[in-house]
């Protein structure tokens, strides 16, 4: 795998992360299902997955950049697994609505597991690391991916502030704390 192909695949990874963040926003805004604290933590890990690909696009592929995303995916999978276990007992309907038969935290676990496999697969190709260390000009495709993920993360900052306000986020949020009208 050449260096430029690896960078293109990293940019595609950024678009995949952007899609996940968009779907999460879609559920929040269209279905009016506010993310719980553990859901927010998983969403944060999805955003953090983007740091490795951004470093790869900017500085060129390095094993340490993939390690950044692997550590994040491992943490995200652990957070999602805990939420699955919280609702594992028969009769428990789970938190929020299901999408194609699985709740969002189950999809999150699958997403993090897929990320681990994809990152390990990328690490198999040593040739991407052998080329010179000079910074390459970043193309529009990769640049747009970085901006998209950054913009979605900034929107999540605003959304989380509106939802949780300046205090602790409720376990089962149903309204935006900062949009509540004074009685």
């Amino acid at each position, binding site marked *: 795998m050449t260096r430029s192909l690896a960078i293109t695949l990293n940019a595609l990874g950024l678009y995949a992360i952007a899609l996940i963040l968009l779907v999460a926003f879609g559920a929040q805004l269209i279905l009016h299902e506010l993310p719980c604290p553990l859901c927010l933590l998983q969403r944060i890990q999805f955003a953090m997955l983007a740091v490795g690909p951004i470093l790869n696009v900017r500085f060129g592929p390095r094993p340490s950049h993939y390690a950044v995303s692997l550590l*994040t995916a491992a943490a995200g999978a*652990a957070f999602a697994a805990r939420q699955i276990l919280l609702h594992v007992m028969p009769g428990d309907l789970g938190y929020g609505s299901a999408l194609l038969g699985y709740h969002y935290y189950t999809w999150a676990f699958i997403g993090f597991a897929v990320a681990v496999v994809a990152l390990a697969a990328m690490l198999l190709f040593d040739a991407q690391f052998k080329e010179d260390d000079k910074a390459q000009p970043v193309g529009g495709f990769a640049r747009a991916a970085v901006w998209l993920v950054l913009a979605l993360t900034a929107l999540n900052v605003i959304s989380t502030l509106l939802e949780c306000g300046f205090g602790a*986020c409720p376990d089962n949020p149903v309204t935006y704390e900062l949009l509540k009208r004074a009685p």
Partner: protein
Amino acid sequence: MMEFTILFLAVAVVMVAAWWGTRTLALALFAATLLASIAIYLHHASNVLTLSF
């Protein structure tokens, strides 16, 4: 508290550092943010589980 808002903000700062700053700074900020998110997870995980049995 605002821990989740601050965490999202921290992730955005890490991304900005990765895109415009130095590699060392980005990796250091990433490590701090990852540790913070794990600490917040452990704090919440120490709560009593309200399982359905």
